[in-house]
């Protein structure tokens, strides 16, 4: 039997349907589809895929288990390295990580590793919902309390590991619900909240104490947390400070940071206004600035809120877009209008202070910069205006400074990111950090890896093996 050169397709909602709803776009593999896709893996001896994955999941191992229909073993293998496979299977930039190095990709398409990961994780969630899963064993109670700040992927995975090691874990979250970006940022049509909630319910079952509405740095400081009896602290507070371009008119009404726009819609459910109380402008002609996942999510959300035109304005070309390839394709299929090599220079408003136009410049690509990406250069005299009634700025975020500003001796980097060594240890004894707060905006899987790495270090710290 010859092996398929192309990946087994995953069924999706059709573009003309899905652009009107918030339901998930890719629908998942059936068992048969998963078995076909699993059989494409060559079980290579060199296993390059494993090194492509930031947390080094034993990929051929779990795929083999799927192929042999040992689903229980498959999920166990994944769980050794990845606590949120239902999430990472959906949102990892696979085409730059595990799949880019897959041997099958040399003469065709790589194995759909992310899709198989999602399949098996969804199978596991179904099982869990039916109560068919026993909780993992916890070690003997250690009589020590650890605080975890933030409940994004970094905090969640750190908390799970610590509680399994026998520590008492209290998680402090500033918002009224857990999940971090998984909850307030990534939209429902890409990551259903039911999945995130299921993962969080798991945390509760394990006995992690969750405290909400608690902004560390303001409600209490790190120092005060130590005084109240915590032996070590993990900071996973994310990169939540939105950047603006500081161009004229950027504070007009109708102009949002992507964080505000997505938080209103996802966390506060503004798309259900007025049943829910938080309002959002339903723009008809919307400009989204940026080319990453956050920009794609904002553009596709604006479309689903009823926009007639959504312009995605990005200063480089399509190749340089940092977004996941699948999201770029989905956005194009749904009718997002890409204005590439274009950069906004100012916004123009009406007498009520509401945005009406954005003026842009055309760009061309120059030499490669340090990141290897070619630098965009403005083309003189190429100004043009677009009529809009809403703009969403998605040009990046910096770490939130509140904790750094209120913690004596906590070393930070140039953009306010908290400094941590390879063990996740910060410059303050007993304080560990990981995820976007350390790296700047990155990915779910790297944040998760950092959380788990810090949990191991915290154990060593408590035992006196780390100084």
């Amino acid at each position: 039997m010859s092996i398929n050169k192309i990946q087994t397709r995953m069924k999706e909602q059709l573009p003309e349907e899905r652009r009107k709803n918030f339901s998930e776009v890719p629908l998942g593999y059936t068992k048969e589809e998963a078995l076909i896709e699993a059989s494409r893996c060559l079980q290579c001896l060199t296993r390059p895929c494993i090194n492509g994955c930031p947390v080094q999941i034993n990929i051929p191992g779990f795929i083999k288990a799927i192929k042999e229909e040992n689903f229980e073993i498959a999920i166990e293998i994944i769980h050794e390295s990845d606590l949120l496979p239902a999430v990472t299977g959906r949102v990892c930039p696979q085409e730059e990580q595990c799949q880019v190095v897959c041997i099958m990709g040399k003469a065709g398409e790589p194995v759909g590793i992310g899709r198989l990961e999602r399949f098996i994780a969804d199978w596991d969630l179904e099982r869990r919902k039916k109560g068919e899963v026993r909780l993992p064993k916890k070690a003997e109670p250690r009589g020590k309390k650890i605080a975890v700040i933030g409940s994004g992927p970094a905090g969640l995975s750190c908390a799970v590991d610590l509680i399994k090691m026998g520590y008492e874990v209290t998680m402090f979250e500033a918002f009224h619900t857990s999940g971090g970006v998984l909850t307030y940022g990534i939209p429902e049509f890409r990551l259903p909240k039911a999945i995130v909630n299921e993962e969080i319910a798991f945390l509760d079952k394990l006995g992690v104490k969750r405290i909400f509405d608690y902004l560390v740095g303001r409600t209490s400081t790190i120092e005060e947390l130590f005084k109240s009896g915590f032996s070590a602290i993990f900071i996973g507070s994310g990169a939540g400070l939105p950047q603006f371009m500081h161009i004229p008119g950027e504070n007009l009404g109708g102009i949002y940071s992507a964080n505000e726009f997505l938080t209103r819609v996802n966390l506060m459910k503004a798309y259900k206004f007025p049943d829910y109380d938080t309002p959002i402008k339903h723009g008809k002609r919307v400009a989204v600035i940026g080319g990453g996942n956050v920009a794609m999510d904002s553009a596709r959300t604006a479309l689903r809120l009823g926009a007639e035109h959504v312009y995605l304005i990005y200063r480089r070309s399509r190749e340089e877009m940092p977004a996941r390839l699948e999201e770029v394709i989905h956005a194009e299929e749904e009718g997002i209008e890409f204005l590439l090599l274009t950069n906004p220079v100012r916004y123009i408003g009406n007498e009520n202070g509401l945005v009406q136009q954005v003026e842009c410049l055309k760009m061309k690509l120059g030499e490669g910069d340090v990141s290897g990406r070619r630098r965009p250069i403005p083309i003189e005299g190429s100004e043009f205006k677009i009529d809009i009634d809403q703009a969403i700025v998605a040009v990046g975020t910096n770490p939130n400074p509140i904790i750094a500003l209120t913690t004596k001796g906590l070393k930070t980097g140039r953009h306010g990111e908290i400094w941590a060594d390879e063990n996740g240890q910060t410059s303050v004894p007993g304080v560990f950090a990981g995820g976007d707060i350390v790296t700047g905006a990155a990915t779910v899987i790297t944040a998760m890896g950092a959380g788990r790495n810090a949990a191991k270090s915290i154990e060593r710290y408590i035992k006196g093996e780390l100084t």
Partner: protein
Amino acid sequence: MFKILKKEELGPGMILMEIEAPYVAKSVEPGQFVIVRVDEKGERIPLTIADFDREFGKITIVFQEIGKTTHLLNSKKEGESIVDVVGPLGNKTEIESFGKVVCIGGGIGVAPIFPIVRKLKSKGNEVISIVGYRSKSYVFWEEKMKRESSNLLIATNDGTYGEKGFVTDILKKVLSSNSDIRRVFTIGPVVMMKAVSDLTRDRKIKTIASLNSLMVCGMGMCGACRVMVGGETKFTCADGPDFDAHVVDFDSLAKRLAVYKEEEKVSFDNWKESEKV
């Protein structure tokens, strides 16, 4: 859940609530605020902490019924709870021994100015307080304010109590008879804070305004609250809420406050309908 320990009507549509919020009470300082969400479908709204009791773990908020959320909040009774109270948020008001200072509260703004007045006094300042209300029935916390101020001056728009006119009418007189005012603090409607700031600018008296931008997160991660201060974009919740009034762009602040006018009306009309049923 955060329990409402006490509720009191201070005047028409002006409500005081004491809320059980031990973590907030423990660390709050004058000038800081909380973000409140009344129920699961509720909006997050900022309210200044008007008083606090660290020992009993409670804070006091005073609010004016304006739209849906403040009406919804007022529908809650003593003993009931609201789902979220986050804080204390924002920076504390910078209070030192300045000498002679003026504190100006307009309407509901009298409540948040109170803890500032009290702390200023405890630091040995001579505090002249000027408070303004629409009419006599709106006057509240007169005794409390009098107790903490060296001098309390009251204005009502219709002249039914105190002096007839605006706080700025009184401020003009205070400024001309006192040449040694070191600092002015003002909390109230945007137009009032702007007018105050215009009066003190020429005299070069440093003036601090506590801004009331629309907010979502209250912790610096959304940018909903951005304002122009000295030509730069600032986040009211994280960089403020206190700013040097002389360089605040009050006009753009006022415009941003009106962005959701239509939606607020829809929300409020729905609320009134549901109340009738």
